[in-house]
């Protein structure tokens, strides 16, 4: 059976419970569903919001390429990736990855792989909006994220 793949780029919030439920219900062979949600944080009260800019068109296509990569590496029954853009307040979900498989290892590993690759390949950029009302800096890419993505090249 072909895995059920859903990936979206949207401004609207997502519902974790609803997405997990939908993926768990795709078939009798699903024995494990793993999820990761990335949230906007205030950095100790310093930030009022994070503004996410994206490259329309390429964002969807690049997430699609990462999704295809994941399903060729792990035996997944399905997966859901939702990445938001626009203004995020502390506590808002920015990105959601849900993976379903017969066993937990594939679900866990694929979710981590998807996040590592989304971080370094999906064309999104975060800009800080400070609590004092001023516009802050563009968030800088972390060397850690590149290293996290690179390790799949040797493991894969």
């Amino acid at each position, binding site marked *: 059976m072909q895995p059920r793949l859903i990936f979206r780029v949207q401004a609207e919030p997502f519902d974790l419970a609803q997405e997990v439920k939908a993926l768990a219900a795709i078939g009798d062979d699903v024995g494990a569903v793993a999820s990761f949600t990335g949230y906007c944080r205030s950095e100790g009260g310093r930030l009022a919001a994070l503004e996410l800019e994206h490259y329309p*068109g*390429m964002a969807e296509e690049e997430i699609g390429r990462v999704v295809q990569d994941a399903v060729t590496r792990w035996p997944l029954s399905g997966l859901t990736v939702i*990445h938001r853009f626009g203004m995020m307040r502390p506590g808002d979900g920015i*990105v959601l990855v849900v993976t379903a498989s017969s066993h937990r290892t594939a679900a866990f590993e694929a979710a981590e792989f998807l996040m590592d690759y989304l*971080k370094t390949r999906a*064309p999104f950029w975060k800009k800080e909006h400070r609590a004092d009302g001023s516009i802050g800096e563009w*968030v800088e*890419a972390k060397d850690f994220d590149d290293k996290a993505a690179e390790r799949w090249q040797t493991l894969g």
Partner: protein
Amino acid sequence: MTEIKLIYFAWVRERIGLAEERVDVPHSVATVAELASWLQGRGEEYAYAFENPAIVRAAIDRKHVKPDATIAGAREIAFFPPMTGG
């Protein structure tokens, strides 16, 4: 000369002051790195955006490319900082 659509994101966009533009690129400009260096000469906004060309990333027709990628046949070339989504 070849007309190419250029798109800029995040601080590359802010420094140049444009989200996108159509530019006539001379045929002598063959790669992404050469295009970045040619753009640097178009004005101080461009010089600022590409002051450290090694950290600016590029995509041709919505696919990530390396600096040595050829731009022949490209319809849309994007320049942007390292990505910080997720």
